[in-house]
């Protein structure tokens, strides 16, 4: 489903963030991208929704070479991917509910069905009771759960998370990972980048370990 083949990513200035990375993640699989800070985890994840483009090699998502995808086709690629970031990227001038509704605003769903979907997503992450709150009123763990609700509301086939537990305590981090595991159990492919070895150890999942831009495991 997600395939990296000899992927090199070189930033302007010559810094090589990824050096010939190759791997495949099958549909419905759960995999951690592990590695220290600066190992290339974020760069690797950014190549999947074409936030960055590879300097060499190919990144395939469902058979589509996203490295060569046209700008106009990007939104349609990204709608099929659920993205969760370390800094959540929430809109702090909107309510919890409005944040989750955002990806549905440019979809084909009618108002009633969109509202039902948004509330269902909030319920899955345990935030339905806080739907009218502003994100700033939520704890770090709750904000991350809100980001997950927004990522899954469009029912994507792939969920990608970049250090989603970096700013959370151990309990909240485990709870977030449990949510990802629950989505994985219903068939969603999950890719989580983290440097938290203890957390990785708690889940018996595949680990793709990066060191200085190369896969070492």
């Amino acid at each position: 489903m997600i395939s990296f083949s000899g992927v090199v990513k070189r930033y302007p200035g010559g810094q090589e963030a990824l050096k010939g990375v190759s791997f495949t993640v099958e549909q419905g699989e759960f995999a951690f991208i592990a590695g220290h800070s600066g190992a290339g985890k974020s760069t690797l994840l950014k190549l999947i929704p074409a936030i960055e483009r590879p300097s060499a090699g190919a990144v395939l998502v469902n058979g589509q070479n996203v490295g060569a995808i046209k700008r106009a086709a990007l939104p349609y690629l990204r709608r099929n991917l659920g993205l969760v970031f370390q800094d959540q990227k929430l809109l702090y001038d909107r309510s919890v509910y409005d944040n989750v509704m955002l990806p549905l605003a440019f979809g084909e769903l009618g108002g009633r069905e969109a509202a039902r979907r948004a509330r269902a997503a909030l319920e899955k992450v345990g935030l339905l009771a806080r739907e009218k709150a502003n994100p700033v009123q939520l704890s770090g763990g709750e904000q991350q759960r809100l980001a997950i609700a927004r990522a899954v509301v469009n029912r994507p086939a792939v969920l990608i998370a970049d250090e989603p537990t970096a700013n959370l305590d151990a309990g909240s981090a485990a709870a977030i990972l449990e949510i990802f595991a629950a989505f994985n159990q219903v068939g969603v492919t999950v890719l989580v980048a983290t440097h938290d070895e203890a957390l990785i150890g708690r889940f018996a999942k595949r680990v793709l370990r990066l060191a200085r831009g190369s896969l070492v495991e």
Partner: protein
Amino acid sequence: MKAWLRQHRQAVAAAFGKLAAQKSAAALNALVIGIALSLPAGGYALLSSLRSVVQGASLEPQLSVFLRADATRADADAIGARLKGEARLREVRFIPREQALKELQATEGLAEVIASLNRNPLPDAFVLRPRTADAASLDALARELRADPVVAHVQADSAWARRLGALAGTARLAIALLAALLAFGLVAITFNTIRLQILTQRAEIEISKLIGATDAFIRRPFFYLGWLQGLAGGLVALGILWASLAAMNLGVAELAASYGSTFRLGFLEAGDALAVALFSGVLGWLGAYLSVSKYLREIEPK
């Protein structure tokens, strides 16, 4: 189609929301645009009002030929027949002295004066429209006509009207240039307003792009915002124009009354007023389009 309409509804609501969130700035922008647009719109309204005065006069070259007071109708018929055969003339109109007197009687304030006369002092006359406006040719024709013993006076009475017409043409051109300059100003104002909006919403745009919003979806509210801002400016311009004309008409009415006239400066016709508002809206949209085209591409998720 349903989703497309819903997205447009949402974009309009978002644009109104942005205006409502910045009431003071939006009102100030509308006022600046309104004042700028009221200048050419006002000039156009003044010219339209004066056009009714100017249209009363012919702007084409015209010769008036007055016969001697003692000329008989047979003399008039003879010269009329000669003039109608004249190749240099496009139109020959005979105004008998009786008709001229009637027209004079109909003029405000002259009825009593005419009634006090014991005889008609006006001569028979011809109004001639030459085929050419060439001054030398007109002078030659006037000279020939003056040589006729039945003719008392020949008057080339189109010069002032031509001058007035030229003046009106210059004024129209000046207003068009002013309108074009201020239209650029309006586009620049909207361009800058939308640029600031885009920068303010940078985070939202980035997130929207990340989660799959198309450029069209992101652009739409800004287009509506530009259009609404332009439209509001156009409506303010019409308001300023209406109030200014109403104030000016107090003085104009007094002046016109002293000439026995009921002349007033008229507001724009409904179609023209609608055109001002819509044109202003289109310029606002254009400013938004240019701004969005320039700045939206620069915002990409990182």
